[in-house]
């Protein structure tokens, strides 16, 4: 019974991580690739951690598994958010018809404008360049 449960957990986790890798390969731009890798990858690694903890079975192993899953839940979104912000500031354009953030994000002070009066921004992120590209 336990073998069945752990096998199911490990296989579904591995399949989710495979889905994450396929999404990383097939998605059209950086931001969609990032969300595929972050979300599917996190759930996959959580299932694999649970499978390992149940297989090993001891209290120490379950504690290790709990700490590892807590670590993954805390760090993966932070890493993805930091990378997405760095990519946007370095000029990677999202694959959309209109970039809603263009001209509203002050790249020096990291303040968001309302959009009525566009804040002054770096040449990389303003509406004119968005329209011409």
């Amino acid at each position, binding site marked *: 019974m336990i*073998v069945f449960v*752990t*096998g*199911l957990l*490990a*296989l579904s*986790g*591995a*399949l989710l*991580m*495979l889905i*994450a*890798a*396929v999404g*990383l*390969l097939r998605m059209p731009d*950086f931001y969609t*690739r*990032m969300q595929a*890798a*972050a979300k599917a*990858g996190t759930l*996959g*690694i959580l299932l*694999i*951690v649970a*499978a*390992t903890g149940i*297989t*090993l079975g*001891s209290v*120490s*192993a379950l504690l*290790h*598994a709990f*700490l*590892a899953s807590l*670590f*993954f839940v805390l*760090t*993966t979104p*932070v*890493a*993805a958010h*930091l*990378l997405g*912000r*760095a*990519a946007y*500031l*370095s*000029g*990677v354009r999202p694959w959309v018809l209109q970039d809603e953030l263009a001209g509203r994000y002050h*790249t020096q002070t990291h303040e968001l404008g309302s959009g009525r009066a566009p804040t002054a921004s770096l040449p*990389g992120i303003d509406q004119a360049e968005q329209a011409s590209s």
Partner: protein
Amino acid sequence: MTERLVGLPATSLPLTAAMVILVGALLLALIRIVRGPTIPDRVIALDLMASLVVGLLLLLGAVLDLLAIVDIAIVLALIAFLSTVAFASLIERRTRE
């Protein structure tokens, strides 16, 4: 140790199959690293590869019944997180200059 590596027990067949799937996912992420048009693409692929290796280590610990491998996996996850954060701040700082 070596005979446990070679002759895996039959009850760990699903875990071994999951490890094979993870190796396939590693190859797909490697293609994205080679192809990736921008540096952030490569960094996110590297991050996913690190968590794939962590998953491989965890499954190996489950198959071999070794708790120490779980510790190694946690440390590898920590290093991968720190390297991703360092790459992100490097990308951001390089564009600001």
